[in-house]
């Protein structure tokens, strides 16, 4: 066991007028995760510390937060790999509910706006909708998203303009846009083609760096942009032919 120093941004809207920093020293193994250190704070030092976590194994995406200046999952980051004091803040760009918990209402509104589900016009076949491994590979990368919000809240375009649909929603749209079984492209592209859609991306790559699942987020966004351009070109050719 070693001493681990943490500097955590605390904010209780019922009591504080502004967020404040508090430092804690806890006992933990170097091979423990940041989440274990947060648990040590909550269980042995200050029970009022609030943060989200569920599976604690990098699958559910509940404990995304800014750790030493970068959006990370607290359950995937080892203490030995970090400089101390470990600085922990809530993700930026959302209102803070309490301490490390942010209000994700708008995040999920944007997620729902791109219709993140299979849209198929044809009646379902007797067995399953078949797909070749190659067709599946086309959108494999974006199926890995766990909706933790690390990408969207690391995006300077989103910080500046909260109307921007954000990388996470675009990743979700990408997952269905490039699915050979899906037929909802027109509906999703209409949402993504708005001023608040994919065009707000400045290819800053913060999202790609932040993604705890290693998704090539910026690449996915550019693929959706190119898809929109291809559709527009196709549309203008069809219009000219008519």
């Amino acid at each position, binding site marked *: 066991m070693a001493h681990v120093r943490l500097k955590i941004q605390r904010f209780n809207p019922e009591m504080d007028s502004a967020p404040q920093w508090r430092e804690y020293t806890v006992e933990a193994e170097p091979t423990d995760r940041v989440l274990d250190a947060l648990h040590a704070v909550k269980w042995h030092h200050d029970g009022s510390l609030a943060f989200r976590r569920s599976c604690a194994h990098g699958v559910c995406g509940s404990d995304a937060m800014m750790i030493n200046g970068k959006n990370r999952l607290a359950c995937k980051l080892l203490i030995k790999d970090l400089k101390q004091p470990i600085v922990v803040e809530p993700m930026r760009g959302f209102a803070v509910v309490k301490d490390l918990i942010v209000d994700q209402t708008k995040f999920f509104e944007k997620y729902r706006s791109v219709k993140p589900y299979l*849209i*198929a*016009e*044809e*009646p*379902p076949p007797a067995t399953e909708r078949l797909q070749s491994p190659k067709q599946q590979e086309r959108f494999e990368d974006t199926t890995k998203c766990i909706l933790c919000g690390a990408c969207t809240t690391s995006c300077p*375009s989103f910080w*500046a*303009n909260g109307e921007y649909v954000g990388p996470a929603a675009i990743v979700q749209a990408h997952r269905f846009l490039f699915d050979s079984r899906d*037929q*909802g492209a*027109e*509906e999703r*592209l*209409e949402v993504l*083609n*708005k*001023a608040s*859609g994919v*065009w*707000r991306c400045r290819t800053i790559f913060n999202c790609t760096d932040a993604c705890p699942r290693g998704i090539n987020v910026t690449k996915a966004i550019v693929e959706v*942009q190119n898809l*929109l*351009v291809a*559709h*527009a070109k196709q*549309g*203008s050719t069809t219009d000219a032919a008519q």
Partner: protein
Amino acid sequence: MATSSALSSAYGRPKPTGGLELWSWVFMRVSGLLLLVLALGHLVIMHLINSVDAIDYDFVARRYIGWFWRSYDLLMLVLAMVHGLNGLRVILDDYLHQPVQRRIAAWLLYGIGGALTALGIVAVVVFQPPSSVGVP
């Protein structure tokens, strides 16, 4: 089966893609590439091939006898101004959230940008080299 088709038709007719944001994004990429060639060419001619000391009124007047360099400069001017103005428009959209602020900023941007572009175009198009220039 009936449910699935009813669900799909409920979404209504999709609007065609296209529009200002899409084409301005395409324009930024195309003009960016063209400007890279044009501006680098300009830099090489004006600063590497010719010395800055050698560039004077006569030098410009000689270049502007024909239409090639005029067209080159005109293209570079228009592309650079529209590229820059569109970039600023997008930044203003990001950072200004009140509709009134946006409108005022947009009018100022288009007014000043348009005036500067017009001034540049007039200078390139109207300029008449004196008849003595180009005579050896």
